[in-house]
């Protein structure tokens, strides 16, 4: 620890670069002489470091260049699932995507997630998405009297549905699904992941209620195994596999 302050600043210096972001904006109010409801692409130049994420670039734009830019974010560290957006034609979390991983030499395209009604810029109405989740009854369903202590479960039983407990409900999977884009009726991958988490939980007894719902018109049989959801999931959940396990349970009658 003999380095001087000056030297350490140099050693710790992070290379900076100029990045162009091309953002698909939607103006519901019609400001600056635009028609209300105009959709347009706007380019922003941002000075950014190699360690910066897309979210940092969006912050810089909002704080320093154009305060009217609207996007959601809450924790900004990949936990809350608020900032899912379509970055370079793939659904990702802006807070988990480094600029240097996106080829900063070219403009970075940022769009709202597809298939849900856009409210402003990158903010979409998540209500249809949450409605699908509520449909599959995402709560513990049991019969009999509640035990005095916690409901115990073996590590193997817990591992059975571990993958689907990781969901943060960012909607990246559901809004990457081509069936969800075309057909407003489909529950979407996330609701099936949410159902999977309870169907394969040994403590839960409502599995056939949920399977009944997923056997419906808008349920798992709409899935075409496009694998977009698995690729989009920022938590690395094997979404298509979870959907296939639900299909398997419906086909064999065994869980």
């Amino acid at each position, binding site marked *: 620890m003999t380095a001087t302050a000056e030297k350490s600043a140099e050693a710790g210096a992070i290379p900076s670069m100029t990045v162009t972001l091309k953002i698909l904006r939607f103006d519901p109010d019609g400001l600056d002489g635009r028609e209300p409801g105009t959709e347009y692409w706007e380019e922003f130049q941002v000075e950014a470091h190699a360690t910066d994420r897309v979210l940092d670039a969006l912050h810089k734009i909002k704080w320093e260049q154009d305060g009217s830019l609207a996007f959601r974010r809450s924790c900004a560290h990949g936990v809350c699932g608020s900032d899912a957006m379509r970055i370079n034609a793939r659904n990702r979390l802006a807070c988990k995507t480094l600029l240097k991983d996106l080829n900063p030499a070219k403009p970075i395209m940022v769009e709202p997630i597809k298939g849900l009604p856009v409210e402003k810029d990158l903010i979409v109405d998540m*209500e249809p998405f*949450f*409605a699908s989740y*509520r449909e599959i*009854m995402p709560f513990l*369903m049991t019969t009999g009297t509640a035990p005095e202590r916690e409901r115990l479960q073996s590590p193997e039983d817990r591992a059975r549905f571990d993958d689907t407990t990781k969901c943060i409900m960012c909607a990246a999977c559901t809004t990457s699904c081509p*069936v969800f884009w*075309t*057909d407003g009726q489909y529950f979407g991958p996330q609701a099936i992941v949410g159902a999977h988490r309870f169907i394969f939980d040994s403590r839960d*007894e*409502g599995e*056939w*209620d949920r*399977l*009944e719902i997923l*056997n*419906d*018109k808008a*349920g798992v*049989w709409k899935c*075409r195994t496009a694998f977009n959801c698995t690729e989009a999931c920022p938590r690395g959940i094997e979404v298509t596999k979870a959907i296939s396990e639900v*299909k398997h349970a*419906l*086909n064999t*009658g065994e869980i």
Partner: protein
Amino acid sequence: MSNAPDLKAPKKAISHSTLGRARRWSWMFQRISGVILILLIAIHLTMNLVMGDGINQIDFAFVAGKLANPFWQWFDFLMLVLAMLHGANGMRMIIDDYARKPWMHATLQWALRIATVVIIVLGTLVLFTFDPCPAGSDPSLLPSFCEDI
């Protein structure tokens, strides 16, 4: 923003009778018929294009010879029906996905159903009423067994 709608009360547990739904059978049929079709089409292509003289052997006599054999008649019938139902089922799902206007959806679905039935009926008629030895045609173009008649 409106408030979240009230949660519905959980439904009563439903037995395994829910398994017998049309959507599930359509999905199952698609997979099973797909596997059978791969086998049938592979045999069909091998018999017609690889075995014997290969692609050069296909003429009226070759096809007439095959269709005079009940085994190939039923083989081709199975292939025809499965291929048509597999294709129509796939098209039905595409129409469900992409035809948004109700009248367009209904029109396309009915056009698909009619086309499927017409092609299956027509194909079946050809397969089972085919005359391998039409009277008064050049014997050199006909299958060899026509000489015996």
